[in-house]
């Protein structure tokens, strides 16, 4: 038991990988067994993460810094070690990844081709995501960062829709392009400080004198820092994605299989935003603070143009994909405020400090909220696609009369995505709007156009699908299956719970954010 508790975080990272290997070794014709084995194995990391959650809530709220820490020398020659740990920012995201993976597996029970490989990829990706959220060493971070790319590439490439080759290629190359700069910058940081340890770097790298010459290059540290900052910025901006780096997302989401879209939208997009909070802001506080206006403007543009572009779609899945850009724009705005205050020189005044706490809280909470609602929306689009074999909104119509339960669930989830108060989406949006009002009044005011469009595209999706006279070709659609209900109900319960009582999650986030802002 002690051993379990000591290694619980590493276990949570590696059990999915091991489970993936086990699943991939199952015989190819045992599809049903494979599905159930994969599902049951994916509950193991979920159990571990839930245990961590409760241990945290009961013990560590007093001191919300990194816990469950493990540090093992890994590559001593370059100063890299296997260093993992979680705090109140990463723990909710780990929980999100651990929750969405079993649901994604359940949602893919209808996959018939290469079941073993599909399930194995999903499980391996879970390991990579949890590992990334837990990484406290830049090299480990980067390894998990790249590692997470591979499964989703294959998920899109093999099980995707008609245009999967283009979509997977675009996604992979685009993200890799960002990673290059990231890797280079990580090397530069390692070279200048001799360590890759994030908690150490947060003081040592930040405090290096700006005129320090870097190695034999003759470049001063301030130049190098600027370059590294923008490399980090672009790498994470592509992943979030922030406008105008977003065009890979609609393609990848639209072409991915249902579970792939769920995980992609639910967790993978958060890796970028998490990168901003965990690395960009603490490692480049002054730069991040000076350029927070850029980030906020891009966030506002994501919200507005994402909203408009979503409204312009006639492919349901692409509409939902664009909604991710719209919603992640709020996360970016929150991060901008957080960055603005975190790196401001001198002690921030109380009003700004409160803004930053709200912004940090709101950004992390909005990530969770978007993870839940986007996963739900993609799943529901998958459910209807399964039955009608189309995603064209013009071809739907009147499906509510045929599938009343599905209709109710779709409306519920859509409303969560729209940010209806009482459901989860609203809390994050409110906090971010509140936080951004002080520092970025113009941007947040303009973002309201995007929030308006959120309503427009959500209603368009719901209306075109459910409302109207039932078209004769949809009269005999089968109702939702038990497994489909099993996927969506946990998500709906969480959406409602977080909407009514957000402190269930926010308490943990708030502790750490407040501690960081100080």
């Amino acid at each position, binding site marked *: 038991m002690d051993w379990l508790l000591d290694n619980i975080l590493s276990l949570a990272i590696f059990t999915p990988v091991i489970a993936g290997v086990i699943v991939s070794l199952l015989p190819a014709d045992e599809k049903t067994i494979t599905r159930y084995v994969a599902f049951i194995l994916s509950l193991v990391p979920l159990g571990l993460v839930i245990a961590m959650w*409760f241990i945290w809530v*009961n013990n560590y*709220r*007093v001191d919300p810094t990194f816990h469950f820490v493990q540090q093992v020398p890994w590559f001593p020659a370059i100063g890299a070690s296997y260093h993992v740990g979680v705090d109140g920012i990463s723990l909710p995201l780990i929980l999100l990844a651990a929750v969405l993976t079993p649901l994604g597996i359940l949602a893919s029970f209808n996959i018939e081709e290469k079941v073993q490989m599909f399930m194995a990829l999903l499980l391996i990706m879970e390991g990579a995501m949890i590992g990334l959220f837990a990484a406290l060493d830049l090299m480990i971070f980067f390894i998990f960062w790249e590692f997470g790319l591979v499964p989703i590439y294959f998920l899109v490439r093999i099980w995707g829709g008609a245009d999967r080759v283009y979509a997977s290629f*675009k996604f992979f190359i*685009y993200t890799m392009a960002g990673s290059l700069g990231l890797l280079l910058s990580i090397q530069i940081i390692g070279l200048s400080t001799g360590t890759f340890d994030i908690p150490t770097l947060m003081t040592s790298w930040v405090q290096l004198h700006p005129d320090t010459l870097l190695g034999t290059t003759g470049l001063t540290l301030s130049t190098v820092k600027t370059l590294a900052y923008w490399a980090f910025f672009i790498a994470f901006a592509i992943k979030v994605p922030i406008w105008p780096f*977003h*065009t890979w997302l609609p393609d990848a989401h639209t072409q991915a299989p249902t579970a792939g879209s769920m995980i992609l939208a639910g967790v993978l997009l958060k890796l970028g935003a998490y990168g901003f909070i965990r690395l960009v802001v603490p490692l480049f506080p002054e730069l991040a603070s000076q350029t927070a206006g850029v980030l906020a403007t891009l966030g506002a543009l994501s919200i507005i*143009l994402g909203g*408009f*572009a*979503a*409204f*312009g*779609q006639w492919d349901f899945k692409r509409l939902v994909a664009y909604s991710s850009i719209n919603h992640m724009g709020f996360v970016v705005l929150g991060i901008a405020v957080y960055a603005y205050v975190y790196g401001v020189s001198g002690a921030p005044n*109380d*009003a700004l400090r*409160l*803004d930053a*706490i709200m912004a940090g809280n709101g950004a992390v909470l909005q990530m969770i909220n978007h993870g839940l609602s986007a996963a739900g929306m993609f799943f529901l689009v998958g459910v209807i696609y399964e039955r009608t074999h189309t995603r064209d909104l013009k071809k739907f119509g*009147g499906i*509510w*009369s045929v599938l*009343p339960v599905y209709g*109710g669930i779709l409306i519920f989830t859509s*409303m969560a995505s729209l940010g*209806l*108060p*009482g459901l989860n989406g*609203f*809390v994050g949006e*409110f*906090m971010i*709007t*509140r936080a951004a*009002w*002080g520092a970025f009044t113009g941007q*947040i*005011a303009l973002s*309201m156009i995007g*929030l*308006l*469009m959120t*309503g427009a595209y959500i*209603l*368009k999706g719901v*209306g075109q699908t*459910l*409302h*109207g*006279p*039932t078209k004769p070709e949809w009269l005999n659609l089968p109702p939702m299956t038990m497994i489909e209900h099993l996927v969506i109900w946990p998500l709906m319960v969480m959406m409602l719970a977080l909407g009514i*009582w*957000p*402190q269930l999650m926010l*308490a943990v986030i*708030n*502790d750490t954010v*407040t501690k960081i*802002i100080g």
Partner: protein
Amino acid sequence: MELLELLTWLIPVGPLAAFAVILLLTAKNRTLSFILAWAGIFIALVLSWIVSFNVFGDFLADGHAVAEEPVRVHSSVAWLPIGDYYGDPQGSAFAAAGDEAHGAEAGDHGAEEEGHHGEEAGHAVVPDETKSGTWFRMGVAVDPLTAVMLFMVPFAVFMIFIYSVGYHNFGAQPGKFLGIPNHGMEEPMFSRFFALMSLFGGAMLTLVVADNLLLLFVGWEIMGFCSYALIGFWYARDYDSPKRLSPRRAAVKAFMTTRIADVIMLLGIVFFYRTFGTLNFSAAFTPESFQNAIQATAFGAVGLGLMAMMLFSGAVGKSAQFPLHVWLPDAMEGPTPVSAVIHAAAMVSAGVYLLLRIFPLIAVALEAAPGFGWTIAFIGAFTALMSATIAVAQYDVKGVLAYSTISQLGFMVAAIGVGAYIAAAFHLITHAFFKALLFLCSGSVIHGMEHGAEHVHDHHSDPQDMRLMGGLKDKMPITFWAFLIGGMALSGFPIVTAGFWSKDEIFADAWYNFLEGSPVGLFVFIMLALSAFLTAFYTTRQLALTFAGKPRSPLAEHAHESNSYMTTPLVLLSIFAVAAGWFGIPDNFLGTDGIFYNYFHHFVGATLEESFHVLYELHLIPHEIFTLPFMIVPLVTSLVVALGGIYLGWVMYARKPLEEGQPDPMIGILTPALHNFLHNKWYWDELYQAVFVRPAVFFSEVIAYELVDRTLIDGILHLVARTIFGVGGYVRRFELAVFNDGIDWVKDRFLDLSREFRTFQSGKIQEYALLSVLIAFVFTAFIMLVNAGILNGILN
């Protein structure tokens, strides 16, 4: 007091629980569903009235105590953690700092601690809030304004619930078609209807009891969703005429139009929060808090005025004021009980209620710059007059009522614009009663007409068209009398009806405002007087067209009175439509002294009396709460416009009722062009369609997606990709030429060589042996020669 707090918390719970239970558990059982919905709202009604009468009792017992402390019931819970993490060793230090710096709901810590310990205890997960620093607190509060709303809202909603059972033909044969009206048959989505109505009621009650803007906004938005779901309740319905908006599009229109207002309101809320440091009404609207806030914003009091305007925008959308009024007439596409609940008890009242709730802020805005007052007053008065003119030229029985709603809400908003806080609240309450009554009556009429349509198998005539009615007085007597009472109240028929007293108070306030030297008062007075005249006229017209004369179509011929589920609420509401006004007769009516007591004025006035007194002393607001002197001009005006309008309507429509096929005399008087202009609602819909909707769609589909994303950004990406591909192509050709072909050449030469040499491999053993011998001989010879020293000369 603790019990009252608990009861206040429980007010919205009943309907909300009914919503959840009906949807999740009892949707299949219609009877159980509607009984649950009834039970939910009835519990809310009982609780509301207990709380409401308690507060009123306090007022009757000691009016000054209520004025001293208007928030009679208050309780809140820690809802959203915002800083100062749990368990900081200097717990006490940050609690104080938090309150000071972030304005965290100071003052009520003590009060809610007792109320909330119970809930938190036994919950190891949720920290003890007293130690955990700054929280955003959600709570309920009841002051006199809330109390009068709590008196009105659940009662009106409950009446509508009773009525709905009959409206949806409970007990008849169940209808077969989902999403369209099944005339004469029981609505197949009966349970769903009651679930959504319960959610609607619950949301409105949440909004009313909210002690902060955020909780108010929660209820506000949920109502927006409910209105969307209920306006589009018959989601599959389509009309033959393309000009008529289908319910589902009306629903989207309602949601989107109000959402325009809501997002601005959300900005107003965050502005409010950042400036005041709290969203709690009673904490924010103290004189000290105002003084701090004025220093905190960049523009001082004008900044607060801007904030008030942002919040006012929300009310403009929700209460359907110009320029966002267009959604409300189309909201008639929902079932009539929905129209009633939207137009009377809940949705539109919420907008005005918001203005009343934040009235201290608006009062500061009125004092800060005259422009704010003008804006509010102009929007209200213009809306009132404009929609009154439109209502004159409508034929849809619900359409007239819809525009009258907009018009009456304009009265309230205009009243707010001249600072007539109590008059607006009073009109809100009386209007809710008689408008709910009128809508239910019109529903009853439509129901009767639909029955007639079923009877004669006519599915093309519109059962809502007043031109096809007439003579329903004898066929539907209860509905007629109820409609008459409601109509007279709406017209402001003197002395007896509630509408007279509330309108009269608005007139008096506006006139007094003018006498004090403000031109806004005169503007509002004239505009509202004209509107009131038109109101009386079109109401009489409607009554006459519907009930007088002989039936003008077979539908009306075969109409009959509705069932008792529908008529009972009519009777009950009629009582309130008349009697609600008697609580607001001015103290000094006709110069008397001591005969009348304006309960409403003093009770609701107590909400702000004390704080306004201080604010007035600080010159932050134009005037404090006071009792108007008796003035003859507004009274006469009010009598003249009401009676004049009724008389004109009677002359035109009732004295000689319309015959079948006879055109509306109005067309002749107004000229067809003007009539068309009014009938088509000033063409606002067409204008908005051209100016906003189509450009938005165009921008979304063509610019944001096709141009920016697909062409520009993806174009750049593809350009990069293509460039790399191009460069890669050249590299590939270079590689092909140099590495591929070069290495192939070397390989080929080796091949040729080996082809030459392979002849050695003859397979004949003797050749191999011979070769071996020869080689052995040569080597031996060589070695011997070396040993003999013969080769020394060569080797060295």
